[in-house]
């Protein structure tokens, strides 16, 4: 699929949010990612785009899949990759975010991949360092590479994104995955719905350019894509949702609710899944589930992002 937008390639220094990405930029990244996905299926996966470059994974919040996905992406492109789990070191010694950033900056990395528990923290950090910064998740704000990998997964399975009806179900309020996906999918011309109990919806959610449903069956009706979100354990004990049992009954994806979506609807989940809470175990393993494809596309999309950024890095 070729892009036709005026901004047909990704030439930014940082990737902090999906909010201002154009369709052209997204398509350019997805095109690159398609190629990366292809090369990832070869025996020799190693390329040299980032040879000599240093990539630091700076994670202030524990992560397994995103961090390893970025690590693999960086290594496959030839970069030197260092993982820093700050939750376990300097932050506990009282160092501020800015000081940590300045310290790392002095080590002269080329690309910083940052995850932080506070919305806006990654952008703040980007203002203080000289290298490129990729947002790997900031609080409930953004997780751009997740939305891009979801878009790639959809585009590869359906051949398009425009015109599809995508139902994002679950804890919309606290989800950076939801916010990023709403941005990307809207930009790409999909019809976006969100499905959640009112306690898990941000106030005035409908202002985000989405259709809001509190009844899951209605929200899934005729959907092409059913995208489930993870529900954090601490939110299901009576504060936002009474119990996992009740949540599963009304908002868990089971066969009965799935039957309302289109017969060829795809099932997605950013992981890690709570089987039996937001998704029935048999649905997670369903033939229409593309949850494992999402993981594979995750590496490809991150390679595409790093590659596009490498082109912008100073060469002297």
């Amino acid at each position: 699929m070729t892009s036709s937008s005026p901004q047909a390639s990704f030439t930014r220094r940082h990737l902090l949010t999906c909010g201002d990405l154009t369709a052209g930029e997204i398509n350019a990244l997805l095109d690159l990612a398609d190629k990366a996905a292809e090369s990832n299926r070869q025996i020799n996966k190693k390329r040299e785009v980032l040879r000599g470059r240093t990539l630091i994974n700076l994670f202030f919040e524990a992560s397994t899949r995103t961090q390893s996905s970025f690590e693999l992406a960086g290594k496959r492109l030839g970069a030197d990759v260092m993982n820093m789990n700050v939750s376990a070191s300097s932050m506990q010694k009282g160092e501020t975010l800015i000081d940590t950033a300045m310290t790392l900056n002095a080590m002269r990395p080329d690309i910083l991949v940052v995850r932080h528990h506070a919305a806006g923290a990654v952008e703040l950090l980007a203002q203080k360092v000289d290298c490129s910064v990729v947002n790997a998740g900031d609080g409930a704000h953004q997780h751009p590479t997740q939305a891009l990998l979801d878009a790639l997964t959809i585009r590869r399975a359906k051949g398009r994104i425009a015109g599809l009806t995508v139902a994002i179900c679950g804890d919309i309020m606290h989800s950076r995955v939801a916010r990023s996906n709403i941005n990307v999918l809207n930009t790409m011309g999909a019809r976006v719905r969100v499905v959640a109990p009112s306690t898990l919806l941000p106030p005035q959610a409908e202002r985000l350019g989405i259709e809001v449903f509190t009844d899951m069956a209605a929200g899934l009706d005729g959907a092409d894509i059913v995208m489930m979100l993870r529900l954090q354990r601490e939110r299901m004990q009576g504060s936002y949702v009474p119990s996992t049992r009740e949540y599963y009954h009304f908002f868990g994806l089971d066969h009965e609710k799935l039957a309302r979506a289109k017969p060829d609807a795809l099932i997605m989940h950013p992981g890690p899944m709570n089987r039996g809470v937001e998704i029935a175990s048999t649905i997670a393993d369903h033939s229409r589930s593309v949850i494992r494809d999402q993981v594979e596309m995750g590496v490809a999309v991150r390679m595409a992002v790093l590659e596009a950024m490498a082109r912008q890095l100073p060469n002297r």
Partner: protein
Amino acid sequence: MRKNGTATQEATTFLNARLVDPATGKDEPGGLLVKDGVIAELGGHLRRNAPDRTRIIDCRGHVLCPGLIDMQVFTGEPGQEHRETLKTASHAAAAGGVTTMVVMPDTEPVIDQVALVDFIQRRARDNAIVNVHVMAAMTRGLKGQEMTEIGLLQRAGAIAFTNGKSSVANTRVMRNVLLYAKDFGALIVHHTEDPHLTEGAVMNSGEVAARLGLPGVDKAAETIVLERDVRLVQMTGGRYHAAQLSCAESLAVIRAAKARQLPVTCGVSINHLTLNENDIGPYRTFFRLKPPLRAEQDRSAMVQALATGEIDVIVSSHDPQDADTKRHPFAEAADGAIGLETLLAAALRLYHGGEIGLMPLLRAMTIHPARLLGLPSGRLEKGAPADLILVDLGQPWVVDKAQIRARSKNSPFDESKMQGRVLLTMVAGNRVYEYASAERG
């Protein structure tokens, strides 16, 4: 859970009745035919002539109206059966003209789980002679911290949700409950008394408390919580019912909320309509209530608000307490008074005293709670359940605790003279109480 009329049930015709239907405001002579547990036919043409092969009841011109719906009844089942069971409460209800009672979750254990809703429904089905519905807890253990499984409880039959006798102090919890309940269209019924302001208080603050030397609480404790709740309703859009208000200031809040079209309604207990703080007299603990009895001007404001419809519902707030909780110094006694058997008679005091018309009085105990709770009863209408009462508005009687059917006898109306008596109570076409056979042998 509704009592069912049986297919083999004998059809009954009420002849020569004064049909009073608070739903339509009609008050006219006529008759009414009951068949298979529902109202099959009614109107002037049945006034004198009954269809063949029906049992005939001559109403002698007395009022035939829908049975009362009491949306706040405490029992001791499970946990405190020595105070009241569903069975004993239902007999008291039938004698008082209450055909549907909504039981509160303040039991041991608290009704905060699906299995317990089921338990109450089964016990009521097997033992109660009137309709019993469950109002489930909206927070676990009524502790005001974590919301209950409102969706599943509703599916199990819970008719509304409440925090029982206590207010939820945590505003965030209250907001989330209203927000969550909205998705299910569930009604939140809230007792409005600031728990911190009321701590240690045993009656209304003011001159009477000052004279008695008892710690009182300002009525603002009620209005503060109500005002907060109304703001939360505005924020969330949840359906909200203030369980029982007691002072004029609260009415102003309700008036303003209703003027803004918010989904807000309110109730008042029969005690706060007919008694005031002076009735406490020499430390009579049967008059120790929650919220406390207020000043006379508050009482008369409540009656006026009832007449204008600002107050939607009258409840008995039937709360059985035993000697072990009431026979104490006033400050150490428990709150609460029974009221199922005297609900209608006490309400009729207001009617006989010229304070309010019969229709607005009955509305607040029939069609209004029916609409709030989504019940098909509370109206004289073809096809509606045959939950009916026949009332002699004029008959004088004296409340006698020896005659009280409730297991606990803590009535503030003990030895009071009443005017107006339920002659017959019918639930789903079955006669569950008859004055003549009960009292005259």
